[in-house]
């Protein structure tokens, strides 16, 4: 690329101007920004439901929320966080923005469908918010029948349709990614030269296209049962509510991997960068993503150990659940091995990497406790489960999302944020998170059940700790929001490659031009060639 040309073309942010140019854009980078704004709003909404839950649980009596309202609040916390934040979080924002750039493409294969997926997301989200305004929904995010289909008098149909519609935005994203990876790679970008973030998003996309249609038809059946009397799960006419649970978890367990796999991709990028080393065992990390995607489809029964599912089915599900931990462990060991004897730099991405690895490790290991059938009978539906999946989904998923957001922020916005503030915020989030959820392991093991607004007085100390932690965690998130937004206004301009990272995305200007590259790149090197990577520089050089 000729340096002199760089400034002649405006970046994607300014070409062209105006609200309509954003709402009708086909540029994957702008769509990523639209998604980023949307999911931030939903994170705030879901977070405020969480705040209400934690406020209620400070005291053992149900004094802040009534039992019915509490049911609605935890349902909406789950629905909003899972379907409207976690599932689109990394793929639709960082994936949308960087996946095409990383493989040297000008855009995703189907730019219009990419925009359509955002609009579908907005429609689904609006319907769900309508359900909230109309009085909420109280089934839990799992919509278990027959409560959801015949008993609940809340707005289940509206919320279910919202989830159904949003599912299609996820399907379209996955579909677009798969075709893009297969058909849009630049010359020389072979499969085994692709960054691991691309591999992770590819595996995620497989889960999205194979799993999401099943939840779509399942919640559609709930809506049909409520609205049209087409009973499929209704026990009064001989229907089987457990069938619903099978169909539900067939998607919703793999959905956990939709939330964590892209995060693992982000961490692979960050680990190589902060260690300034080639990733240890590239192909193992790449294939472990696929292994997680595949094995993840065969473990759903571990959510149903106490539903009366046959004990032999339970045994098989228990064993396969242990098996799915292997590829996750492969990744964790390889990241650690990458850092070993690496020239580790104390930049803010490191803080997120370490935070992710610590929290994901705890979340993953406690998953083994729950996958063991006998122990699960004791721990089922206690706060132990709540703590476990928050360690994976928030400790793993959100830490990775924030890590990726910090790492790629200079490229996306062209601005630098304050490094010291980012380090402080990451520590706040890490300690706040642990203070919130670690006590829940203990109190869950002691037998405190999920989903109640009151609890025996002896559990109070753990709940107070938890609420205190949630406050710190919330402050950490708020702080990140503030300094990131501030950086857009007042932050110093970002150079092309502030972290001295490898990859095509760091060889183009910050922020990129609409077509990403001035000339189609020809790839001649392996991924993570840190021997030949440029040194990190936070200063904008004169010719940039």
């Amino acid at each position, binding site marked *: 690329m000729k340096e002199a040309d760089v400034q002649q073309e405006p970046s994607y942010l300014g070409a062209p101007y105006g609200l309509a140019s954003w709402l009708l854009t086909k540029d994957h980078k702008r769509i990523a920004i639209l998604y980023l704004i949307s999911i931030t709003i939903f994170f705030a909404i879901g977070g405020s439901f969480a705040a209400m839950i934690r406020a209620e649980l400070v005291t053992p009596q149900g004094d802040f929320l009534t039992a019915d309202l509490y049911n609605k609040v935890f349902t909406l916390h789950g629905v909003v966080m899972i379907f409207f934040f976690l599932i689109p979080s990394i793929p639709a924002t960082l994936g949308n923005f960087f996946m095409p750039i990383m493989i040297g493409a*000008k*855009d995703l294969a189907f730019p219009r469908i990419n925009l359509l997926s955002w609009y579908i997301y907005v429609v689904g989200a609006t319907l769900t918010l309508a359900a909230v305004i109309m009085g909420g929904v109280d089934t839990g995010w799992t919509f278990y029948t027959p409560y959801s289909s015949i008993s609940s008098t809340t707005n289940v149909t509206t919320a279910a349709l919202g989830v159904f519609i949003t599912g299609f935005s996820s399907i379209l994203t996955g*579909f677009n990614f798969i*075709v893009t990876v297969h058909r849009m790679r630049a010359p020389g970008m072979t499969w085994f030269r692709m960054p691991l973030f691309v591999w992770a998003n590819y595996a995620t996309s497989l889960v999205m296209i194979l799993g999401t249609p099943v939840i779509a*038809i399942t919640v559609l059946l709930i809506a*049909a049962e409520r609205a049209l009397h087409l009973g499929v799960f209704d026990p009064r006419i001989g229907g089987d509510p457990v069938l619903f649970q099978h169909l539900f978890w067939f998607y919703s367990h793999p959905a956990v991997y939709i939330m964590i796999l892209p995060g693992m991709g982000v961490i692979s990028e960050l680990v190589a960068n902060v260690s300034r080393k080639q990733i240890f065992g590239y192909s193992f990390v790449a294939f472990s993503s696929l292994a997680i995607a595949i094995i993840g489809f065969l473990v759903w029964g571990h959510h149903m150990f106490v539903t009366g599912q046959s004990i032999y089915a339970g045994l098989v599900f228990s064993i396969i659940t242990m098996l799915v931990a292997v590829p996750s462990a492969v990744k964790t060991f390889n990241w650690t091995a990458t850092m070993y004897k690496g020239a580790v730099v104390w930049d803010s991405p490191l803080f997120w990497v370490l935070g992710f690895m610590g929290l994901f490790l705890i979340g993953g290991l406690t998953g083994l406790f729950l996958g063991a059938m006998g122990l699960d009978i004791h721990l089922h539906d206690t706060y132990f489960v709540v703590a476990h999946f928050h360690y994976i989904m928030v400790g793993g998923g959100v830490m990775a999302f924030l890590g990726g957001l910090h790492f790629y922020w200079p490229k996306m916005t062209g601005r630098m944020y304050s490094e010291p503030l980012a380090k402080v915020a990451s520590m706040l989030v890490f300690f706040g998170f642990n203070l919130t959820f670690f006590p829940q392991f203990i109190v869950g093991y002691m037998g405190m059940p999920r989903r109640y607004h009151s609890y025996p007085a002896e559990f109070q100390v753990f709940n107070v700790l938890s609420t205190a932690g949630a406050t710190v965690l919330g402050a950490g998130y708020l702080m990140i929001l503030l300094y990131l937004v501030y950086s857009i206004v007042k932050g110093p301009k970002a150079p092309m490659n502030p972290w001295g990272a490898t990859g095509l995305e760091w060889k183009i200007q910050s922020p990129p031009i609409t077509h990403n590259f001035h000339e189609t790149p020809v790839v001649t090197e392996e991924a993570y060639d840190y021997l030949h990577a440029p040194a990190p520089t936070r200063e904008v050089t004169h010719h940039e």
Partner: protein
Amino acid sequence: MSNSTSPVSVAKPHPKLQSHFFSMDQQLEASTLGMWVFLVTEVMFFGGLFMAYIVYRHMYPHAWVEASAELNWKLGGLNTGVLICSSITMALAVRAAMIGNRTQQLINIALTSILGATFLVVKFFEYKAKFEHHLVPGPHFDPSLEQGMQIFFSLYFVMTGIHALHMVIGLGIMAYIFIQAWKGTYNAEYFAPVEVSGLYWHFVDIVWIFLFPLLYLLGAHGA
């Protein structure tokens, strides 16, 4: 690598080549792969329903046969024939687009649409009969019928209803490619929309090929 085509493009790109692709070949490959991936999602979508079908048929084998006998296998068989014919005309339409024969495209797309519409008309009369015979699940369902039959009919309406919805969408697609073919858009260099529409149409037909025996032909009719 599939897209090893040189990025150094020829002097004049095809007017239908979108700017983010290197070549028409790459664009065609992306479109067809996209449709195949989409069809995979459709298989999973119907798959959930087939799973429910398997579970309940296993649970209520007798009621399933009884309920199936209430369906009109002759109309179902007629519709099967109609859809198979429409798949033939669809395949001919794709072929005509590939060789750029405008008249053949228009005739075959029109025939496909007519056959698709015929299917929906027959389906309408079948649904109407179910309403009259109190076989629609809900408060009006004939209470004297065996346990399990109501679930059969729930699945019948959901499965054939979603299939019919796909037919309606297919007719919309036919209308679009008919107009484009009228304008002479498709030729040997650019026929991807017809090709992927064809894939979709065949898929919807194949779903019916599964639905017909599973719903209509249980037990021995008339025996």
